[in-house]
């Protein structure tokens, strides 16, 4: 059914449709409205059989969720930025213990300097933590990805982070289609944990693993993520068949067949980029767009097959590896290793800096110098600081 909802409320309602037993989260902008929404649904009795835990910190929030998941309860948490970093030790622990927890990350910059606005720095801090990671392009996709996330997590026994651009999506009022409870129940069966803490079959979870076995454990985690690629693709198809929407899956291409230049990105900025692509194509050029929906596992084959005909690939990302440059652009470059394509790396929108169509258009048409482009950078300010002895 169609609703006019704030992104966070839509996500809260979608999570509620997945019938979690334990929800535990700690307020931080821009994620806060999601937890308020869920608390409200629990308190009003609309979300039954669910415990909403008010905790004292993010490490508490995710640890409660970890404990609940290990006891066999479908569990959920959400955070942003500093909150994720505050959780980080437990983030690695959840995946190491193979607990299929689902977490929403309302993407926000990481300080210092403190900044509450959107970029993907927080997500990038978790990219090697063993979680599956998805990026939503629209609020509708955010709704859909949460339903998919629980199914994927429980089927693959891997935790999932659903990335949703802070403010741009979390605080935007848009029309979204919320599936019915019956539809979701049909798609997402009740949680049956593989291993859990039970007195009928006592087991020790979380042993110390010495060097003789540790490498194998990590190798298996890597293999499991690789195998998850197929499950993610199949479940994306299932989702399409059941709900009629092309949410989820690995990558989404736009005008990609004929394209000579393809712009690769993640998250909500894809919408703006597609508008620019349309404009350029109307002017007779051959541009396309590729959104990475599933960022972990990194879908190398899907990316290669989407980009194999491109002559130029422009990666626009909201993250920066300080001392290296782009993160996604390096990963795409590695994936395309051996193909004859020109790579352009664009870092954009850090700390909520506006990304406009005009800026993108100019950038896409510029001849690349081979250096990383910082979109909309105030060169004068930067140079005056370098001049002053930085």
């Amino acid at each position, binding site marked *: 059914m169609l609703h006019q909802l704030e992104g966070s409320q839509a996500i809260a309602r979608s999570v509620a449709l997945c019938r979690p037993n334990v929800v535990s989260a700690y307020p931080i902008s821009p994620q806060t409205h999601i937890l308020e929404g869920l608390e409200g649904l629990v308190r009003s009795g609309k979300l039954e059989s669910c415990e909403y835990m008010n905790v004292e910190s993010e490490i508490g929030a995710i640890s409660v969720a970890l404990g609940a998941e290990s*006891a066999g309860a479908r569990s959920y948490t959400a955070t942003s930025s500093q909150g994720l970093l505050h959780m980080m030790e437990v983030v690695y622990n959840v995946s190491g213990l193979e607990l299929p927890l689902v977490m929403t990350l309302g993407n926000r910059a990481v300080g210092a300097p403190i900044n509450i606005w959107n970029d993907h720095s927080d997500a990038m801090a978790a990219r090697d933590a063993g979680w599956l990671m998805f990026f939503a392009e629209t609020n509708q996709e955010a709704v859909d990805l949460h339903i998919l996330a629980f199914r994927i997590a429980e089927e693959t026994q891997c935790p999932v982070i659903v990335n949703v651009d802070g403010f741009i999506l979390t605080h935007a009022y848009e029309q979204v289609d919320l599936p019915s409870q019956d539809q979701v129940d049909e798609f997402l069966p009740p949680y049956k944990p593989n291993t859990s803490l039970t007195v009928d079959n006592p087991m020790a979870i979380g042993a110390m693993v010495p060097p003789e076995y540790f490498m194998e454990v990590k190798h298996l985690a890597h293999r499991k993520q690789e195998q998850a690629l197929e499950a993610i693709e199949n479940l994306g198809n299932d989702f399409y068949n059941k709900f009629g929407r092309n949410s989820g899956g690995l990558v989404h291409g736009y005008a990609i067949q004929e394209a000579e230049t393809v712009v690769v990105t993640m998250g909500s900025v894809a919408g703006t980029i597609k508008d620019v692509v349309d404009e350029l194509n109307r002017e007779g050029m051959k541009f396309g767009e590729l959104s990475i929906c599933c960022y972990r596992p990194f879908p190398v084959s899907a990316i290669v097959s989407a980009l194999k005909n491109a002559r130029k690939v422009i990666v626009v990302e909201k993250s920066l590896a300080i001392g290296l440059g782009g993160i996604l652009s390096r990963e795409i470059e590695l994936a395309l290793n051996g193909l004859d394509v020109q790579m352009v790396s664009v870092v954009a929108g850090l700390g909520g800096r506006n990304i406009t169509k005009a800026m993108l258009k100019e950038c896409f048409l510029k001849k690349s110098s081979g250096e990383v482009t910082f979109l909309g950078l105030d060169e004068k300010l930067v140079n005056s600081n370098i001049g002053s002895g930085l």
Partner: protein
Amino acid sequence: MSNYTIGGGFSGENATVQSAHDRPNTITSGHKACQGCGEALGARCVLDAAYRLTGGKIVVVTATGCLEVFSSVYPENSWNVPWIHSLFGNAPAVASGVAAAFRRLGKEDVRVIAQGGDGAIADISMGCLSGMFERNDDVLCVCYDNQAYMNTGVQRSGVTPSFARTATTLPNGVYFGNEERTGKNVPKIAMAHGIPYVAMGSVGNIRDLEQKVVRAMGIRGARYIHVHVPCPLGWGYPTSETIRVARLAIRCGLFPLFEAENGKVVGSTPIEDQVPVEDYLRTQRRFAHLFGKNAPVNALESLQNMANENIDEYRLVGGLAHE
């Protein structure tokens, strides 16, 4: 009445769980703890008593530290109960999550115990612990207090006693071990949350400890037991002396055994034959610098004052035991 026998001698209600031929054996032998480890003994007593009382319906969340490392190195495992280790700093929160799950899954008959060392519970988990207390989650948290970070090589914790030598409070002629009157009193912090049950126990008095576990398990909500567990390696005494050292700590008054309900002390275990703190301190190398030529002037007096304050506060000598 206190009972200093571990092996038996009393029957019926007065017998210890440990003296029973069919004790539950929640931690099996063969683990890697040092000989004479007070923490291994403490955990066995606590969990066996809880297991016996609940008919085996317990789940145990253990923090990183000696207890976890000596009991669960893959492919071996000493635990005969459903058990989880997550991290050093989150055991109380993980336990809160397990309890929340059981509440929602209709398994409230299974009880949740969080446990860890003093470093884990008193220091790095303090935030999670306070959260668990203030929400009154149905969790029993047990702190095995060996008064330092043993697993990482005996560094100071927030409950290391005054003047104790640790790897990070080495006496050097200018400093005399741990700073005087620093540190925190976790049972009092727990009591300040008004939780239904708080107790201090010791492996020096097994029957008293078991009774406290039984009382704690008879109550729902957040409960806390702080257990004194001497560590031969960290404290520097022969491995055969753990029980004697633990008893001297009780008898000198430095480790008061008491119980509190809803934030108020309701009873204490009387000292039967009081000794000066010196008798306790002299057993351990961590206090050796308090004696001999270069000893600090007021250390013994200061520690004796602390013991006397405990004796007064909890009426440990000639006072009232349980009403």
